[in-house]
Structures are given as C-alpha cells and as structure tokens.
C-alpha cells in the first residue's frame, strides 16, 4: 500500500485514530490510552478489544526497538510513523507504517512470509518453542512479536515495502483483527 493510499483510507474508512508523527516512549503511552478510550466507546467483545490492544502494543514496541538501532532515525523524518485504527465489517484493522533501512527489507520480508505460511497450531508451537528455548536480547522480544501478532489476529499479515530512496523503504503492515 502506498503512503498516499493511507490518507485515502483515513477519508474513506471508519477511522477511529489516525496518527502521523514521531515514535517515542511518550507517544506509546499516550497512544495506548487513546486506543483504549476509543475502543471502549465502540464496546466490542472483551476478547476482540484485548486482541487489538495486544497487537498494537507489539507493533509499537517492535518499531520502537527497531528505531533505537537505527542511529540516524532519531534526528530526521525517518523516525516518523503512520498509524491508523479503523473499524471493519467484522472487527478492526490496524495499519502501521514506518521507515526501514533497505538492507533490512529482505530479512523482514522473509520473516513475515514464513509466519504467514503457518497455520494456527503451527504458530502456537513455534511461539512455545521460542519461548522455551531461545534467549532474548536486551530490549527485543526474541522474534516473538511477529508470531504473537499473527497468532492473535488469526489472519495473514499483509505488508508492503515502498522504496523511498537508496537508503530507506517505507514498510507498512495491515493487520485485520476479527
């Protein structure tokens, strides 16, 4: 999905939250409260509400940790993210986009493709295996985040990379939660 079409989405969809700006710890705290308030008003079943919040927590923390490792991102627009929370027919859709270094694209793509190939039980097994056996690095979640997102959403994760320049691509995720 192109960045432009994200804005198209804001106009066309039943958007609860639309944000474009810097990612920071403070943003995380504020946005989480905002998400909770908005969801409360929609009053979905508890299970769905918790899934949406859980996925958003993982997505934000993944981006936050990624950006901490990219030095330049702290000072320029590469620290910018786009985040949308929309209502859908069956539940909610989370759109989130951020800049990633071009050299990270292949690995990210492979990782998501691999996760998308797994069915629910396989995801659960993989999650459990990693939780039990793999050590984790400071700040990171040992690669559990993306598995958790796939597991909780119950749908395939759709994503896109849009090349911005020789250094960066814009990475967007589209997660349906039903």
């Amino acid at each position, binding site marked *: 999905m192109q960045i432009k079409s994200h804005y198209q989405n804001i106009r066309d969809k039943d958007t609860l939250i639309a944000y474009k700006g810097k990612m920071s*710890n403070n943003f*995380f*705290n504020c946005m*989480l409260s905002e998400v909770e308030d908005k969801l409360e008003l929609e009053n979905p*079943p*508890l*299970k769905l509400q*918790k*899934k949406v*919040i*859980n996925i958003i*927590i*993982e997505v934000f*923390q993944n981006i*936050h940790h990624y950006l901490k490792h990219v030095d330049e991102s702290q000072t320029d627009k590469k620290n910018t993210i786009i985040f949308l929370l929309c209502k859908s027919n069956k539940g909610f859709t989370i759109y989130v986009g951020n800049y990633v270094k071009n050299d990270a694209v292949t690995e990210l793509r492979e990782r998501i493709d691999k996760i998308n190939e797994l069915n629910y039980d396989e995801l*659960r097994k993989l*999650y*459990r295996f990693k*939780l*039990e056996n793999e050590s*984790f690095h*400071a*700040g*990171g*979640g*040992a690669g*559990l*985040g993306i598995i*958790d997102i796939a597991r*909780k959403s119950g749908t395939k994760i759709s994503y896109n990379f849009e090349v911005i320049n020789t250094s960066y691509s814009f990475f967007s995720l589209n997660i349906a939660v039903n």
Partner: protein
Amino acid sequence: MELYNLESTKRTPKILFNPSQESFLISGRSIPENSIDFFKPAIDWLSEYLQEPLDETVLEVKLEYFNTSSSKCLVDIFRKIEMLHKNGKKAVIKWYFVEEDEDMQESGEDFKKIIKAPVELIKTNKF
C-alpha cells in the same frame, strides 16, 4: 527474608513477594519498555528466596496484558517456582484469566506446557 514489593504503573505490574504473609503475586499490566531490566530485581529476589523457601509457595498471576518480552521474563520467574518443586517443596503457579479472554487462557496453557511445576488455570469474572 525481606519482602519484595513493587507497586504497579500504567505499564508495569504490581509484584509482591511476601513470605511472612505467604503471599506471592504478580498483577496488572506488563508492557515495560525494557522487560529484562524491569524483572531483574524480582528474579534476583527469587534466587535468594530459593536458598531458604517456605514449605509451600503459591504464586498468583493476574495479568491484564503482557508483551512478548515480558513473557520471556515470566518464564524465568516460573523457572524459580519449578526449582522449588524439583527440590521437593510444594510450589504452585496460579494463572488467572478473565472469562472470554481466550488468548490469556492460551498463554496460561503455553506456560503450563513449558514449566515443570503445577500450573493451575483459574477462570474468573474480573480481577
């Protein structure tokens, strides 16, 4: 042994390990920025507790949300309870989840599979 008592915040759980009251509790939200740093003191406390534990230790876990990096730390905490169990003490983890919250129930089942100490899943109406 001195108790370990940490009040909850918007992103971190309450942790209370109080041997004199026979009370061991983790409750609230666990979505810290850095889970390893956050949980280290609690894990260290438990390591020391293992030297001279009570005959019975029941750890109650009542979490609303937790991120994946916290789940790794929870495994580390539960491993301490497992150690008590292995050493012949009575040691139980009580994993509470709110009715309807199947994801939290599944998480409890995941821990139950991983941890070699009794893990009881307890359905509740509200925390």
